[in-house]
């Protein structure tokens, strides 16, 4: 038990995490490429045409995975932030920082594809639907996190301030979602669900799942690649960085 504990903490040191991340990036890139490739093939050639929404429904194969990933990444970011505050590890905050841009990108993509789904289906690019509105607020939360970290020069303070903001955000997300939902039902606004109306077949579900796993592997690969740059920048004064072959170059 004790030795396992020590092993975990060993990886929380940037000097050991950096090469580990370097080995994992190509692995997850390949997984992502294969899964997304299979997912794309399935979304266009295997999944049948929907009897109600025609070919337009195929948008859900990117929309739903992007929306799921945007939420999932925020939670992961908050977990890393919490770990960083509790154990005072520098690496956790670097991971949170590396995840934020990818999460923001998926939030944006979920909104974008939601708009492209909405135009043909309900005739408007934007509808104040509870889910789309919450997704928009999630994007704002990501932007706030990135802006706060960008505004603080001292990396220690940036890490910890960002961690607190991420934790406050993750506590607020359910409250925000609940209140937006309440607001939406009260105003009898368009409550739309992309999956409703079309009977979700087994094939569609699998396609969505494979795409989500592909996006997940993609997020891991990109954030690990990004955290390597962050580590190099932060640790540039240490001897282990100066001894790296790519630095000696």
């Amino acid at each position: 038990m004790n030795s396992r504990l020590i092993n975990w903490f060993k990886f929380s040191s940037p000097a050991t995490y950096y090469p580990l991340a370097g080995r994992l990036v190509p692995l997850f890139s390949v997984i992502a490429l294969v899964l997304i490739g299979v997912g794309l093939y399935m979304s266009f050639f295997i999944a049948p045409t929907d009897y109600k929404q025609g070919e337009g429904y195929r948008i859900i194969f990117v929309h739903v995975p992007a929306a799921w990933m945007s939420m999932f990444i925020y939670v992961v970011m908050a977990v890393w932030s919490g770990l960083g505050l509790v154990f005072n590890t520098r690496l956790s905050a670097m991971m949170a920082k590396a995840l934020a841009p990818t999460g923001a990108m998926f939030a944006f993509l979920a909104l974008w594809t939601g708009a492209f789904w909405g135009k043909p289906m309900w005739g408007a690019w934007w509808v104040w639907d509870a889910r789309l509105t919450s997704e928009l607020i999630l994007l704002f939360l990501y932007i706030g996190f990135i802006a706060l970290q960008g505004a603080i020069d001292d990396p220690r303070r940036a890490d910890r301030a960002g961690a607190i903001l991420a934790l406050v955000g993750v506590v607020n997300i359910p409250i925000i979602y609940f209140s937006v939902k309440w607001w939406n039902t009260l105003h009898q606004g368009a409550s739309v669900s992309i999956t409703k109306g079309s009977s979700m077949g087994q094939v569609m579900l699998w396609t969505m799942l494979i795409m989500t796993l592909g996006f997940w592997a993609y997020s891991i690969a990109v954030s690990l690649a990004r955290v390597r740059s962050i580590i190099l920048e932060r640790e540039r004064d240490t001897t282990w960085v100066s001894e790296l072959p790519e630095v000696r170059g």
Partner: protein
Amino acid sequence: MFEAFLIIVRRDITLAMRRRSDLFTTLFFFVIVVSLFPLGIGPEMNTLRLIAPGVVWVAALLASMLALERLFAADFEDGTLEQMLLVPQPLSLLVLGKVTAHWLVTGLPLAIVAPLLGLQYDLSPEALGVLVVSLLLGTPALSLIGAIGAALTLGLRGGGVLVSLLVLPLCIPVLIFGAGAVEANVSGLGEQGHLSMLGALLVLSLLFSPLAASAALRISAE
């Protein structure tokens, strides 16, 4: 312990009263923003009555954002904040005191002048009452949530805009239930549910935000 809280409240109010012009800027900002909407939308009374709750609430939200920047700034600059970090009483209690004082001088005046602004929009006396109650419940929650943002951005360049960027998304539930309460009253649905939700939000933010804000203060003042 409670004494420390009262001392902070009294001190901050005294300090605020010495610089009264600051208080009036927030208040006048609120009044001017609310009065601008009819000029932008047109004097059609039916439309105005419809948008009144939202307009007043959004303006109150923006006005309280405007005041947030000053919450900890003066104490940070003259070193009082560092002293507060060393005091034996819990920092969150002192933060609560500061937020209370801040609300008394910025949030409370908004709730007091709101009925006058509601008259511009032809709200019924009953709806005006709900507006005041919703602001009395909502603005302290706004100050509390805002305190986290103010503590996080303490001493940063462009802190004022950044605070709004961080805090506005977190304030959305308060806005929804605050404006919703007035709207529910106008449409005859009854404001009870919204007001209890606002109360719940206030209690939640009372419990958690002093803790988060004091943690943030420690990080920023280091």
